[in-house]
């Protein structure tokens, strides 16, 4: 295994997405987690990123879908008709 090097806080913020995505190489992940155990600032930063993702996801609660289902059904019927006549 590669030698584990402890990243700085400034490097930690660049690793965060790879860490959350589970794509950080093993050695970097161990370094990331070692730093995290010692650094409250980076713990908060990671929590903030997790929270950011959750809160962004709440945008999916609303939708301004005003397309009438009747119109879409017409689209489907028109497609069937055209297909069957050709």
């Amino acid at each position, binding site marked *: 295994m590669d030698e584990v090097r402890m990243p700085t806080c400034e490097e930690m913020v660049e690793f965060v997405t790879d860490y959350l*995505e589970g794509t950080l190489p093993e050695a970097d992940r161990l370094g990331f987690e070692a730093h995290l155990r010692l650094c409250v600032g980076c713990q908060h930063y990671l*929590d903030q990123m997790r929270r950011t993702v959750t809160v962004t996801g709440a945008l999916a609660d609303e939708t301004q879908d005003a397309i009438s289902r009747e119109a879409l059904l017409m689209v489907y019927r028109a497609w069937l008709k055209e297909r069957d006549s050709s």
Partner: protein
Amino acid sequence: MVREEESQIISALRAGDEAAFMRLVESYQGSLVRVAAMIIGDAEVAQEVVQETWIAVLKALPTFEGRSSLKTWIFTILMNRARTAARREGRYVGLVLETDESGDDQHTVASDRFHPAHTGVEAHGWVTPPRSWEEMPEQVFLSGEVRRLIHSTIDALPQQQREVITLRDVEGVGAEEACNILGVSESNQRVLLHRARSKVRRALEAYLGE
């Protein structure tokens, strides 16, 4: 949706099953409208684009080979149309800016948040560490104001970043599927997601107070 389920839907559509078509519409409609609105920035145009997408999906159905999932395929059709509409609406900033997103906003976190290199043991450490958001009341994050803030922050992102964060974090699409829909590599997708998320976090932090 499982593959087997998908091929059942496809044969039902080919057989003229109206209820099956309407079920398919209900599965994806909300998501399609949201994604289109985010990409285009105009709710009305977004509705038109989604309607056109369904027409295009049906038209191309006889040639659908199932190399991607039905969902990926539908969203790819939507994305192509939404991009065209966004360009028409003047949403794309232009090719030069579009390809060079590295220059769009220098840092994940403002560099003055960290001690400079010459400060010895403190170098590259936080000057003022980020606050904990855990002790803030939950309602703060659920407020309309925060919602609008996130919306406008995503709105202001470069096109590719906006596409990635919309699929990944708003719609909860997985990394691999997002790459297929957007036609970007996995590493590129992660870089775009990283930049987009970092900016949304910064906007939240600025709003909530450092």
